[in-house]
């Protein structure tokens, strides 16, 4: 039997935490060969990163402990090597890139120095290292490499920073590149570019690529084989297309079913009558930055309008402006025909009840020092006419049940919940006001796919039960497809295209909308392959 490039056999790792010993991974086995791409797919808490961290010797021990298994690099067991041997492998033979490159690059050193350090650490002379760093910067597509050498990480954009990480990782021509959620925080178009770069470089160098991700679309785009993990164990492994089309394990099936963008598109609605909310020619400046350049928007009662755009498109500014969290500089906002901007504070205060918001990160949108009961009942403290105090307790219990939690959770604090549960609490808090319109600002984008599907389902149910309207801000097109009635595409503070879901998804007019659709990843490897083909053609026709 020939040795694999890298093989993990029966690896088990546990961590000692406050809640006792946690088995992070149990009996995990996978292997990676030269020139192939293996994806480890899993949701948060599945232990998908743990075996890679064990390979890199990045698990802090204690609290971590490897209880069993071997890690073979070209047939040699890494776990029996000395720390010095492990150090020499890191970067030179196996390199790693991470999610959130800004946090992973040292903020106080130039990127040129950081890339060159990779090589000087592994014994290359300084001037050669610097020359190669310059070359690498050009290779990964950083404009003006000479100037870039002397710049600091904060002076680059998110996509460029990930390119810098890639340049650094490839400096010593490693045999293996481990990429831990490399595109998670990036815009879809940038994500496509970074993945393409990784693939290109892999073909050039013949390295093995280990990709850790939560995103079926990324797997479909780039992986040859896939390992699916759940709760610290491998549930399924195989060829990426086969696993997608013929999943064996129920968890894999659930994960694939939860992937957004496959449901029925909603029927078209009648849009006559008085709109619930209208925005007209909204303007907003932040200093010299023109965030909103005259945005119009109409939401009918019971309608869900999605606003889609990449970072910097002004979609969140729009949400905040409509709720008057940041007052717009110009334009009008009409709620049931009356102007929110010209309204006296007393009337605005009363209107607050009707317009509620659910934020992206429930960890931050819930006050950490308030119990769930206080969080929800604060609505009635501020608006005492909604509910007499005697009924608060029962109503909180009722709302918690409505969002899929249990009444006894009212006594707990936000940090005692998972991300999905916290978002449910935030939704319960919005419902406590008995609103007509809920603005969801990226309300599901921080959640795992299966949780995401559940929360969308919850929002959908509430819409039907209470006749709610939603303004749904998102960067992710597939999520919008199943849930919204109408879609507005924004770019650089302007509306690029607007229409029903069917119009936008099936017959987009504007090139930008098409580029967005082309860049978003489909979980089906075959669909994705076709889409990639289409994208490449599109790129050839209109150069960037």
């Amino acid at each position, binding site marked *: 039997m020939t040795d694999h490039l890298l093989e993990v056999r029966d690896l088990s790792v546990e961590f000692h935490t*406050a809640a006792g010993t946690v088995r992070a991974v149990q009996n995990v086995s996978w292997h990676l060969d030269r020139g192939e791409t293996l994806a480890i797919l899993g949701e948060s808490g599945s232990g998908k990163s743990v075996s890679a961290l064990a390979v890199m010797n990045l698990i802090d021990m204690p609290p971590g402990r490897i209880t069993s298994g071997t890690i073979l690099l070209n047939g040699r067991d890494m776990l029996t090597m000395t720390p010095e041997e492990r150090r020499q492998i890191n970067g030179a033979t196996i390199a790693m890139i991470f999610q959130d490159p800004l946090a992973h690059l040292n903020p106080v050193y130039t990127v040129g120095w950081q890339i060159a350090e990779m090589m000087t650490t592994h014994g290359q002379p300084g001037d050669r290292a610097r020359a190669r760093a310059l070359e690498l910067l050009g290779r990964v597509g950083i404009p003006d490499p000479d100037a870039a050498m002397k710049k600091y990480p904060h002076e680059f954009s998110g996509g460029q920073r990930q390119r810098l990480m890639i340049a650094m990782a490839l400096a010593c021509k490693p045999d293996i590149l481990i990429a831990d959620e490399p595109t998670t925080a990036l815009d879809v178009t940038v994500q496509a570019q970074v993945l393409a770069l990784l693939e290109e470089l892999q073909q050039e160098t013949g390295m093995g690529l280990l990709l850790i991700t939560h995103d079926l679309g990324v797997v479909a785009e780039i992986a040859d084989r896939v390992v699916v993990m759940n709760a610290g164990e491998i549930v399924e492994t195989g060829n990426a297309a086969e696993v997608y089309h013929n999943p064996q394990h129920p968890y894999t099936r659930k994960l694939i079913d939860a992937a957004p963008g496959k449901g029925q598109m909603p029927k078209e609605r009648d849009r006559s009558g008085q709109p619930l909310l209208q925005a007209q020619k909204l303007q907003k400046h932040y200093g010299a930055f023109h965030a909103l350049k005259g945005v119009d928007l109409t939401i009918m009662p019971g309608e869900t309008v999605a606003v889609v755009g990449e970072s910097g498109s002004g979609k969140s500014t729009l949400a905040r402006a409509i709720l008057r969290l940041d007052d717009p500089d110009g334009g009008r906002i009409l709620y049931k025909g009356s102007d929110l901007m010209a309204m006296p504070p007393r009337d605005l205060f009363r209107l607050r009840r009707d317009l509620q918001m659910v934020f992206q990160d429930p960890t931050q949108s819930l006050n950490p020092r308030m119990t769930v009961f206080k969080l929800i009942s*604060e609505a009635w403290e501020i608006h005492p006419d909604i509910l007499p105090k005697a009924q608060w307790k029962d109503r909180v219990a009722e709302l918690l049940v409505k969002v899929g939690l249990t009444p006894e959770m009212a006594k707990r604090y936000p*940090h005692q919940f998972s991300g999905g549960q916290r978002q449910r609490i935030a939704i319960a808090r919005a419902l406590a006001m008995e609103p007509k319109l809920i603005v969801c600002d990226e309300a599901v984008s921080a959640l795992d796919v299966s949780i995401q599907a559940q929360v969308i389902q919850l929002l959908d149910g509430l819409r039907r039960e209470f006749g709610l309207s939603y303004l749904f801000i998102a960067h992710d097109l597939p999520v919008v497809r199943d849930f919204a009635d109408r879609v507005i595409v924004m770019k650089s503070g302007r509306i690029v295209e607007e229409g029903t879901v069917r119009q936008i998804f099936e017959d987009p007019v504007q090139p930008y909308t098409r580029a967005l659709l082309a860049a978003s990843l489909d979980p089906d490897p075959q669909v994705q392959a076709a889409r990639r083909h289409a994208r490449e053609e599109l790129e050839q026709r209109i150069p960037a």
Partner: protein
Amino acid sequence: MSDTRIQVPVVAEKGRIGTWLSMLWADKLAFLAALFLLIALLCAILGPWLMGDIATKQNLRGRNAPPFDLSRGWAYVLGADALGRPLLARIVVAARVTLLVAASAVAASAIVGCVLGLIAGYSRKRAAQWIMRLGDVIMSFPSLLLAVIVLYMLEPSVANIVLVLAITRIPVYLRTTRAEVLEVRERMFVSAAKVMGASDSRIIFRHILPVVLPTLVTIATLDFAFVMLAESSLSFLGIGIQPPEISWGLMVAQGRQYLTTAWWLSFWPGLAIILTTLSLNLLSNWMRIALDPAQRWRLEMKGRKND
């Protein structure tokens, strides 16, 4: 059903004090520190009443009596001063002025600094600018020097000492509060409260202040130690507390001229200062963890194991 509902809060209340105690017990040094501070506090409250007479009774035959000699009675266990007054009793009595001055100065500077910091952090108006400039101006004064000059000119009295120390410490709270408010103000739960229609005062007092307060309490504890040291330095220089009132710093100063013959005159009150400030430091470190809901589990876990 209704019975249990009434009982729940009572149990929770008891539980809360119990949790705090067990969290304190989890950090043994902090527990000792709290115990010592409690004793010091009792001395400050009851000391003058219990030992006021012994502490002022001069006994020229017992001048500079050495410590650890019980033949004169327990009050003389730490020795006696130049006028034959028992040191232990004097230290107990001096706790009142020492702690009172520090506590008043800390309370005054913390309240003023916190209020100004909340205004400077929350309002975007011109007032915020002026408050920060004022803080800069106070910061650029040499603080101890300022105290020396002002106290020398104004006659050293307890009120003046408190006033001077409080003024010089205001920027500490002002800056911390403002920096924290600026950060907390941008957090999403504040936006969430605004969306609900919460008023400015509700946002400040219900959402921002509770998040900022633990930091301030921690700083105030640390600052209590600093102010105590500053007061004792001033008293040591002769421009702080004036006899016949006594503070620990003054006692160290009074013992200085007998250094070569009777070291204990300065040593014991100095030790009292060190132990108090050390306790405050330890307690402040403990608070930093105990008052943070995200870190509190460290202490709760340990506390449970020790039960």
